C-alpha cells in the first residue's frame, strides 16, 4: 500500500499530460496521415496532372478525378494534362496513403490536419480548391499564362525518395 501511495505522490509532482485542446495542439508525428493536400510548385503551378492513378489506387474509391488539357495561355500544371475536377470523399477515405504512393508527381500528400468534421454528408466531399495548398510566395495562382514550350513535361525528373 505504501508502494501505491508513493506512486501517487510521485505522479502528483509530474507534468500533467493533458493538453488544452483546441487552444493547444499537439504536434503530429513525422509520418502522420491527416487530410490530403494538393501541392504546388514554387511558381504556383499545380503538381497534380490529373492522371487518376490515386483514384485507381484508392481501396475505398474515395477519389474522383476528371482531367482536361492545358494550353500555354491557360496552364494549371506542367505538361498537357491537368485535373479539372478533383474530389475526395473524406467519409470514405481510410487514410491509408496509397494515393501518395501512386502519385507520379508527389502532388497529393497526406497532411497534418486531423480536424475533419461535417454536419452533412455533402460536406465530406472536398473539392479541388479546398485541397489545393495556397500559392507559395513568389508564385502565381492558376491558371497561368505561360511562355510556349516551357512546360512540356508532366512528370518531373525526380530523385529516388530519401527518408
Amino acid at each position: 500500500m505504501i508502494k501505491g501511495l508513493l506512486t501517487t505522490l510521485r505522479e502528483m509532482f509530474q507534468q500533467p499530460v493533458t493538453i488544452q485542446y483546441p487552444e493547444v495542439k499537439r504536434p503530429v508525428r513525422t509520418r502522420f496521415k491527416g487530410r490530403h493536400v494538393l501541392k504546388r510548385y514554387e511558381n504556383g503551378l499545380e503538381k497534380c496532372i490529373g492522371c487518376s492513378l490515386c483514384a485507381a489506387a484508392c481501396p475505398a474509391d474515395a477519389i474522383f478525378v476528371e482531367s482536361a488539357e492545358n494550353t500555354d495561355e491557360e496552364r494549371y500544371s506542367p505538361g498537357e494534362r491537368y485535373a479539372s475536377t478533383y474530389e475526395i470523399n473524406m467519409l470514405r477515405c481510410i487514410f491509408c496513403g496509397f494515393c501518395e504512393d501512386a502519385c507520379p508527381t508527389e502532388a497529393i500528400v497526406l497532411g497534418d490536419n486531423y480536424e475533419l468534421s461535417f454536419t452533412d454528408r455533402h460536406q465530406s466531399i472536398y473539392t479541388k480548391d479546398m485541397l489545393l495548398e495556397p500559392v507559395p510566395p513568389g508564385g502565381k495562382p492558376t491558371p497561368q499564362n505561360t511562355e510556349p514550350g516551357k512546360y512540356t513535361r508532366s512528370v518531373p525528373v525526380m530523385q529516388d525518395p530519401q527518408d
Partner: protein
Amino acid sequence: MTKLVTLTIDDQPVSVPAGTLVVDAAKQIGNDIPVFCYHPKMEPVGMCRMCLVEIGRPMVDRGTGEVLLDENGKPRIQFGPKLETACTTPVSEGMVVRTQTKVVADARREVLEFILTSHPLDCPICDKGGECPLQNLTMGFGPGQSRFLYDDKIHLAKHVPLGELIYLDRERCIQCARCVRFQDVIADDPVIGFYNRGRRLEIVTYSEPGFDSIFSGNTTDICPVGALTTADFRFGARPWELKSSASICTHCPVGCNLTFNTRREARAGGNPVIKRVMPRQNEQVNEIWICDKGRFAYHYTESPQRLTQPLVRRGDGFEEISWEEAYQLAAQKIRASQNLLTLTGGRLSNEDLFNLRELTLARNGQAVLYSDMAGGDLTASYGLAPGSNFGSMGKETAILVVASDLHEEAPVWWLRIKAAAQRGARLIVLNPRSTRLDKFATHTLRYAYGEESQALATFLPGAAVPEAYQAAVQEFHSAENAVIVYGSEGAGLAASQGLAQTAAAILAARGKVGQVNNGLLAVWQRANDQGAWDAGFRPVEDLPAALRNVEVALIAAADPAGDDPLLAQALEETGFVIVQELFMTETARRADLVLPVQAFTEREGTLTSGERRVQRFYPALPPRPQTRPDFAVAAGIGKALGLDLEGRAASLVFLRLVKTLPAYAGLTYTQLAEVTPQYPIIGRSDLYYGGTAYDNHQGLGVQLPLLPAARPVAVGQSQTAASVTAGEGEILLVPVTRLYDRGNTVLPSALLHQRLAGKTIRLHPQTAAAFGLNAGETLRLSRDGWSAEAQVELDEEVPLKMALAVRSTGIPCSALSAVRLERLTVASAD
C-alpha cells in the same frame, strides 16, 4: 480446302492451313507471341522485332529428300543460328517453335529496352496508359532498368494535330507503321506517311483537311502506343475507369457493332456519359473497323437540346403536359379521325416500328416509311442469303454496284467490297460519275443520270448489250456467285423501284437466289429502313399529298419539314400532327403534340441491317427523366385507344413481333445474343495483337432467311418511267449522298463541323458558264413552291445541264428533278 500443316509450338502440336504465319498459329492455341508492328488484318512487315522466336525445321537428306531421323525415330530438328520473326515466317510441316526459352526472353527484353530508349515517361497522362501494348509488354517481358541514359531521350513535339480529329504525340511513336499501312492498304487513303528517318522519324500528313480519311479513328485503335489519340477522347478518362456496353451504329445500313465506353462525370450530375465509341468485332459485319461518323457523330444523344417533356400546342407556343394527358389527347384525336398516317424514319428499332405498325393497322391507317428508296420487299425475297459475308467473297463472286457512292453511303461496305475485289472478286461499278470504288473495279461503266434501270437491264439474260458493256456483262454471267448492290445516287423512289426490280430479275434469272454469297443488297439511306420494310412500312410517291389529306399524322424519327419546304407546307394542312422526336426539329415545331423519346444509347432494341442481319443494341446510359422509348410511346397511345399493345420492354415487344412478322419467325433475343468464336482473336488481354477494338460477347446477330417472293418480279415495266428533262433556264437536280451530311443526328457533333457537306451545288464548268456562274457564287434553285440558295462548286465530272446536290443539306432533292436556276448577285446573297 487448303492443305493443313502440323507444327509444334512449345511442345504443343497445332494444325493450321498452309501459309499461316507462326504468330497466328500460336495464337490459335493460346500462345501469345508479343508483337507491335504485326496486325492480323494486315500484311506483316517485321519492323519491330518483338516477335522473335526460335524456329527449327526437320533436317532433310539432300540426296534423297527424306527427313533424317534420330536414334528414337523422331525427325532431327535443326534450329537456325539466330532467332526468326514469328510474324513473317509462314508455318511449314514439322516445324518446331520455341517461345519460352532464355534466348527468346533475352531478345524480347533487349528489343523492349531499345524501343524504350527514347520513349517518354508519359504513362500517367497518356490516354493509352492502361490499355497500352507497350506498357503491358514492358511489364511482361521488359527490363526493369535501362542501360540507356534518361538524358539521352529525344524530346519532340507532343501536341501535333494531324487534323482536327486525330492528334499525334511524336515522342511516343515507336515507328511500327501500323497507322501508315492501315491508311495505305486497308483504307486506301495514303494521307499519312513517315517523314525523315531514324530517331527523327515522324508521322506527317499533307492532305487538306489534315488526315483526310473517313476511317482515321481506326488508327488510334491499332496504334500500339499513345502516339495517335482522338480529339474526342483526348484526356477524357483512363481506360480502367470506363464501363462498356454493346450497341449498333445507327448512321447507315451496315449496322457496325459498337461498344460505348461510359463513365460517371460531374458535368452530367454524376450520371454516366459516353466517353468514346469503339468498334466491336463482328467479322461478318464490320470486322474491327468503324468509320469516323460512327465514332464521332454520337454527340446528338447527349445534346442539351434534347426534348425532355411532352409538349402540346397552345396557340403559337407549346405547353408541357403529362404523359397520361398526352396519350389521352393523341388517342382522342386518332379515335375521332377517319384516317391516320404513320410516318417513320429508319432510325427506329424493329420494336418501335412493330408497335407503330400495330397501332396504325388497328386504326386502318397508312404505314409510311420516310425514304426516297424502294425495293425493301425485293431485298426480303432476293436479298443476300443467310451466311453471305463480304469477307468470304473471292474470285468466284461478281459484285455489281449500281447507282451508289458506297464510300460515302456505307463506308464499311465500301471497305469490305474493296477488300473482296483485292482478293479477286469481280467488281463491276455502274455509276454516272467516278467514285472511290472505280479504282478497284474490274469494269467501270457509265450511264446518264435517270437511265440506271436501262443500264442495269443489259445484265438481264438475252438483253441487247451495248459494246461498252459487253466485257462486264460476260464477266458477270461467268461468275459463280453474284451480288448486286444498288443505291440511290440520282434516283428517287420510282427510279430505285425500277432499279431493284431489274436487279431482282437478273438474280432470279441466274437461279441462285438463296445461295450463300448471292443476292440483292440495298444501300438504304437510314440504318433500319430494311426493318421498316419488313414491318410493312412503305414509302409513298407523293408524300405532300398524302400528308395533306389525312386528319392525324403520327411522325416518328423523321423530319420531313426540315428536308423539304413542300412537306412543311403539307404538314401545316394536316389535321393533327403527333411527333415522336429527340429534338425540336422543323417538323416538331409544326406539330400539335410533341412526345420526347429516348435515344438508342438509352434503351434496348434490335435493328435490321441492309444485309438483313438482326442485331441487338443495349442501353449504355440511364434514360433522361420523362422520356420514353418509341415503342412504349406507341403502346401508350394504343392503350389509350383500347388496343392490346406491349410497351413494358423491348424484349416483350419482340416476342409479339416474331409471332406476327413472317420474316422474324422463331427468332429470340437469346439467339441474337449468341456468339461463335471469331478469327482473328481480338480485344482480349493481349491488346498488342489486334488493337483496342472490343471482343464481341453480346451477339453477332442473325441473318434473316429469305421470304418466298409474293409474285415473280416484273421486269421492264419500270423502264417506261417518264424521263425527266430540263427546260430553258432549268437544270436537272441530282440527289447524291455524302457521309458527313447535315442531318439532325450529325449536326450536334461539333467535332465534325469542318468536314460536313456544305449547302452547295456541283456543276460542270460549262453549265456554270452558261448560267454566268463562277465557283463560290450563290445561286437560287426553285421549283413549284420552294426555293433554296446554294453555293456553286465546279466539277468537271458532273454531266452537262445537271447539278449534284447533297441530301440532308437543306436543298430539297428527293429524286431527279428539273429545277429553275438563277444567279444571285452578291448583294442579294447577303
